[in-house]
């Protein structure tokens, strides 16, 4: 009984003492139950995750060192041949560039818009739940569906967006021809689906900011903008880092949207919007059917994601901590004079 819980309160001493006196079969069973049960309860997760998540990820490294085809299976150790072959493919480097640019175009505007929207939603508005649900609607549309819808909206000839551009006297854009335009279109799909979701995450963080900080700022004569930059942003820092990291991990694996962006799903005639995960798919399940090389790409992408997540972690924590420091300094300066006044009134 005493070993049962991790209770911060001191465990009760009465009943276990009494129990221990008659150690019968049921008592032994019960103690065995207490000891073994926790492991039994966590084991389904660890076993299934080990077999279907962790092992495949590690085994990818093994496959990448072999000549391994889709139909034929393993055909001998090749060392780092798969990697050197991939490094010589311009398609690989293009795919990394595309993935990176789509990620940049989707994450930066998304964070900015989500934070601004969250600030708007965190005001004392009417029908709060309605608006919160409203921004979340895109989340229920599957990425594939988003890709199909926006592929049509961004169609070069009969697209809504090009027609609208023409209507207001602007030149039409070759969304499926121009490289940068195709990144923008795909980034728009990502932004469509995830901005509202991230808005709610930021909103929750903003609501956790202590109210008295704002009250103090108002007394000090800070305006709305000043409150936002000097209190809200520094206070939601850890949430910002969390969102940046998760969107890095997800965003660099992007597949569904670029794959449905056109009919062929191969990333454009000159690989304009072929992402690294699409390249991985093309190597393994496309005409080449080369699982060894696909595995090498998977490993490389894994390394890139880890590096990126770390860099983003460092950068975003730097930015927000330096901001916080600067703000503290500013706040300190700003606070001095009004607080003197306050003292005088008292």
């Amino acid at each position, binding site marked *: 009984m005493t070993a049962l*819980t991790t209770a911060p309160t001191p465990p009760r001493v009465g009943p276990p003492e009494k129990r221990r006196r008659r150690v019968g079969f049921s008592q032994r069973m019960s103690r065995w139950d207490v000891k073994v049960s926790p492991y039994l309860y966590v084991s389904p997760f660890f076993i299934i*995750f080990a077999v279907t998540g962790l092992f495949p990820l590690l085994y990818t490294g093994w496959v990448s060192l072999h000549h391994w085809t889709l139909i034929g299976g393993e055909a001998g150790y090749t060392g780092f041949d798969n990697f050197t072959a991939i490094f010589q493919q311009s398609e690989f480097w293009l795919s990394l560039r595309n993935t990176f640019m789509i990620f940049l175009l989707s994450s930066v505007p998304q964070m900015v818009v989500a934070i601004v929207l969250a600030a708007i939603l965190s005001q004392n508005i009417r029908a709060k739940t309605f608006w919160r649900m409203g921004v979340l609607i895109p*989340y229920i549309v*599957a990425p594939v569906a988003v890709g199909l819808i926006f592929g*049509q909206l961004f169609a070069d000839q009969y*697209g809504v967006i090009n*027609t609208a551009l023409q209507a207001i006297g602007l030149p039409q854009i070759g969304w499926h021809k121009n490289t940068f335009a195709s990144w923008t279109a795909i980034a728009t799909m990502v932004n469509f689906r995830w901005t509202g979701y991230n808005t709610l*995450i930021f909103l*929750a963080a903003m609501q956790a900011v202590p109210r008295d900080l*704002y009250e103090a700022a108002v007394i000090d004569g800070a305006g709305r903008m000043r409150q936002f930059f000097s209190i809200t942003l520094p206070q939601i820092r850890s949430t910002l880092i969390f969102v940046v990291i998760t969107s890095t991990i997800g965003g660099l694996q992007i597949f569904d949207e670029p794959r449905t962006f056109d009919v062929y799903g191969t990333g454009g005639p000159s690989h304009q919007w072929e992402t690294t995960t699409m390249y991985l798919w093309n190597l393994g399940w496309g005409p080449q059917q080369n699982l060894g090389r696909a595995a090498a790409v998977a490993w490389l992408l894994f390394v890139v994601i880890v590096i990126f997540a770390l860099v983003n972690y460092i950068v975003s924590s730097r930015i927000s901590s330096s901001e916080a420091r600067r703000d503290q300094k500013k706040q300190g300066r700003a606070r001095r004079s009004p607080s003197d006044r306050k003292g005088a009134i008292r």
Partner: protein
Amino acid sequence: MSSVAMTAQTAGKGAARRAARRRARGSGFGAERRPRWLTYTILALVVVGSIAPLYYTLLLGSSDQQTISKHVIPQWLPDASLFDRFSDVIHNGSFDFMRAVSNSVIISVVTSVSVVLFSTLAGFAFAKLRFKGRRGLLVFVIATTAVPTQLGVIPLWIIVTDLGWQNQIQAVIVPALVSAFGVFWMTQYLESALPYELIEAARVDSASMIRTFWSVALPAARPAAAMLALFTFIQQWTNFFWPSIVLSQDNATLPVVVKLLQGSFHTDYSLVMAGVFLTTVPLIIVFILAGRQLVSGIMQGAVKG
């Protein structure tokens, strides 16, 4: 005596409400002020922008390819021909749509139930039971929430082929049976929502561990479990990458077959959009029934995560 106390309390409540109203009217601090029309205009535009793409699928779905290629917005309101398109999608010649529907339902429901069950079990152990290695294992779980497991598809495919599971839905179900995020989520929730006293009471009544889990922990976990089930359902319903690799068109899921609508050599976008809407309908229903829970789920996860 008690009535006096009650009156006093009501007066207090009323006063608080009046004060709140006064604050709302704009005499209080900036954060409490009622915002003006600009705020609502921005929000309304965002919501319209969120709905518009879905609405557009209805407009194209009510039309046909010839009209679409001439007018980008063929009409402003969907009409009854939408249902003909739906039936075209369902009775198309290249894949079995109803099979895809039932596969999607089975996969989403089975994985939701199993993720909730296994996550609550593990969460109960992590949050409330003491065992050697608890800390280390929990740190491992948290670390794995950030692992891009999608990159393990190649060995996963090799395993699945060895088992002869190609083109069978268990190939999609089994890897999705557990979720590191789910374990973390339930651990967090049960830590605060399940009092130790309840567990001890059950143990004193000589309930076995599994009995304690079933009749004390599981009921306490219900709100968080419902949210976890919702998110797992949506995630699996919209999942594409792995199913598109391992399933082929005669036994696929909805996202996979919708992509096939586009892939045929002559693409009829009216048909594609009808298909897109049709596959989104179940999630629209989920959203109408449980959108509020989704919102609070995301917001709770944010504060805890």
